[in-house]
């Protein structure tokens, strides 16, 4: 008999299965490491030490995690409405413009906590704006959002490079980037938070936007499971035909979902631009938007899951940097491989193990 429609308890569906998938992904990553002639265990050791071993390491880990929480939420919100937003990367990039403009405009005159709301708004609005056209095309014209968002990633990159190279660059400087923000344009580090745990943050750019990210997690949770809009998004996401029956307005819901998704992606810039670099740089997103896909898939599109997944990837990114430093034969791109494998196993192959697990479960259930 087929096992597809046999119900499983949540702790299996949302706990055990993702965990096993994750382990599979790591197993294959280990194979790659072994293939290029290094010891997976050694690698793992460096990875953990490098990401959790010291205060600043943890700081970096959480810094990366912050970015991934934003992009993960971004992907998840769209996902709940049945939309696959691959454009978080570009939306975050353009969002950076909003965040930077706010900082550049205000940092001379006001302290950071005055600038912050404007930076948040700027990032969100620019990010959302970048998601709008794909959303509109999907809703009105039915052009596939996956393709359009990918295209907008490229267009966004071109736009930002143009602005940075020709408009925002500091004359005479080599690198295409804005001037460094003053205190008033930056988001302060969370040394005190680390201090609470007796850790020294050191140079790690772990900053206030982490708290903003947590707030966003709560808001997203509210939106999806506690609001009427969220209910409509989920209905549309699971069963478009039922959504029509229920009178869920398709165009409006799709566009709003994507705007929220884009806004969340945009806010990732707070962490990288206002928090860390204190300037807008070319390619500052550095793939965080794509990591969001893996994070959201791993976290089953639930804020709590996303936080955990984001921290996991934070560990990968920070630990990976250290790893590649200790084992020069393993470049940091190893992370991209792992990321791909996680998406493969936690996403595309999520059902691979289900039949087997269902049988085992039924055995145990009977016994």
């Amino acid at each position, binding site marked *: *008999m*087929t*096992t*597809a*429609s*046999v*119900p499983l308890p949540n702790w299996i569906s949302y706990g055990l299965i993702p965990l096993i998938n994750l382990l599979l992904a790591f197993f294959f990553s280990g194979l790659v490491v072994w293939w290029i002639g290094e010891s997976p265990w050694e690698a793992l050791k460096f990875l953990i030490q490098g990401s959790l071993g010291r205060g600043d390491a943890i700081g970096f880990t959480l810094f990366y995690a912050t970015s991934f929480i934003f992009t993960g939420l971004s992907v998840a919100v769209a996902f709940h409405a049945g939309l696959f937003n691959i454009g978080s990367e570009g939306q975050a990039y353009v969002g950076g413009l909003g965040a930077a403009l706010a900082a550049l405009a205000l940092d001379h005159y006001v302290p950071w906590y005055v600038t912050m709301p404007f930076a948040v708004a700027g990032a969100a609005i620019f990010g959302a704006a970048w998601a709008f056209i794909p959303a509109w095309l999907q809703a009105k014209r039915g052009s596939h959002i996956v393709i359009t968002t990918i295209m907008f990633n490229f267009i966004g990159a071109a736009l930002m490079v143009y602005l940075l190279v020709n408009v925002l660059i500091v004359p005479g400087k080599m690198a295409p980037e804005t001037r460094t923000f003053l205190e008033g344009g930056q988001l302060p580090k969370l040394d005190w938070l680390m201090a609470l745990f007796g850790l020294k943050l050191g140079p790690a750019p772990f900053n206030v936007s982490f708290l903003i990210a947590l707030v966003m997690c709560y808001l997203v949770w*509210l939106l999806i499971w*506690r*609001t*009427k*809009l969220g*209910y*409509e998004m*989920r*209905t549309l996401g*699971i*069963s478009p*035909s*039922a959504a*029509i*029956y*229920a*009178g*869920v*307005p398709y165009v409006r819901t799709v566009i709003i979902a994507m705007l929220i998704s884009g806004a969340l992606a945009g806010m990732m810039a707070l962490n990288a631009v206002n928090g860390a670099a204190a300037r807008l740089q070319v390619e500052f997103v550095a793939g965080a938007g794509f990591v969001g896909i893996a994070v959201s898939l791993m976290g089953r599109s639930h804020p709590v899951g996303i936080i955990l997944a984001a921290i996991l990837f934070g560990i990968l990114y920070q630990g990976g940097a250290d790893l590649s430093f200790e084992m020069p034969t393993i470049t940091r791109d190893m992370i991209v491989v792992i990321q791909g494998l996680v998406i493969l196993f936690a996403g595309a192959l999520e059902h691979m193990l289900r039949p087997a697990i269902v049988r085992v479960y039924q055995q145990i259930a009977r016994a």
Partner: protein
Amino acid sequence: MSLDPSAVPAIELVGIDKSFGPVHANKNINLNIAKGTIHGIIGENGAGKSTLMSILYGFYQADQGEIRISGKPILIRDSQAAIAAGIGMVHQHFMLVENFTVLENVMLGVEGGQFLGRSADKARAELERLEKEYGLEVDPDGIIEELPVGAQQRVEILKALYRGADILILDEPTGVLTPAEADHLFNVLRVLREQGKTIILITHKLREIMAITDSVSVMRRGEMVATRKTAETTVEELAELMVGRHVLLHVEKGEARPGPVLLSVRNLTVKDARGVTMVDNVSFDVRAGEIVGIAGVAGNGQSELLEAIAGIRKPFSGEIIMDGQPVAGLDAARRRDLGLAHIPEDRHHMGLVLKFEEYENSILGYHRDPKYGRGAFLDLNAIRKDAEDKIAKYDIRPPNARLRTANFSGGNQQKIVVAREIERDPKLLIVGQPTRGVDVGAIEFIHRRIIETRDAGKAVLLVSVELDEIRSLSDRILVMFAGRIVGEKTGETEEQTLGLMMAGIAA
């Protein structure tokens, strides 16, 4: 025609068993069918008929059991094997490639050679021969999606014959046919029988069973409950076997006290995606305190009419006036606000979100109602409380508002929908196939609720393909044929008369 019992049966099914996850669709089925006969299979929706046939055709694999073709046990691993064993099937939902030509569809799988060029010409010749022989005209170069359903079904039959089938399975072939087409089909089947081919005919229409089959089997909830020689049984007996007890589907109900008109439809025309007119300039009224039933063979536009009134499908032209207010421009949600409730035909794809928990479905379509939460937020406690009340009142089992809807049985799923829509106490209730795939207990329960709604002075519009249901519930009956309303009758009207009207013959 040989009904000699000593002869080896063409088909023997021994202990066939099949489950789809929680659904036990076929339970230890045994069946013999003699060569050169037409064998009917009847049963409620969801009884397991299609599943059984799909197993015989190798589309599904049985979990247990054996299949013997003219005595020889064979393993039918896939349709290839079935075809090789001389079995052909016309599926309930056609299996045609819509943007291919008739010829391409017929050739698919039996192209006769790596390259299409010459073999196509051979196929064309053969196809034309078959068309002549059985009088199944279709244009070999016609594109499927541009053909009427009847023609598409002919293509399905030609496909089977082209593959040299000796055993032909037809799963509810007449559901989509006009009576004329149906008669034509039966003539074809008779010709095939003369040639010694064995035919299995699945249908809901006892009339057809009596008209054409030599023997008939009845399925109920996955089991094969009886097999009879058609000559030796009666419609009443079959009906009783089907639902498992003596059917007096006539629910006792008092006189209707019609009030003011709550729904009036004026010159409504609805076209489907392909631009084919499904509802053709229809006008009628439904008054408070009456049940108006719309009878008709499936596919004569009732579904489209219902969806147009519900605001799910855009009318092409005409007016829909609800409680004195034109609503053609409004979407489903707005119409609900005006007091419309809608029990849709398809609970799995419209009425419910199977992945949701029960309580979430209990507000589907009404989630914006302030009673379920102020402002932008949902008040989960209020919603669950409300859901539990309905569960109690409608005896939905298991009584658990936190259970995934997909894990309720169909009948209970249907009760969830009925409870949600009727408990709104709407001004106007429109109902489609309220008891499809629902067991008898649930059927009576749902019927009673619908009548109570009427007696509470609501207007009810009922669409069903089950004549008995229509007759026992409706105060007035409108008969729909080919998108038109061909006549109006009272609930007491004889089945035969209605049947003729549904066939588009008499008015």
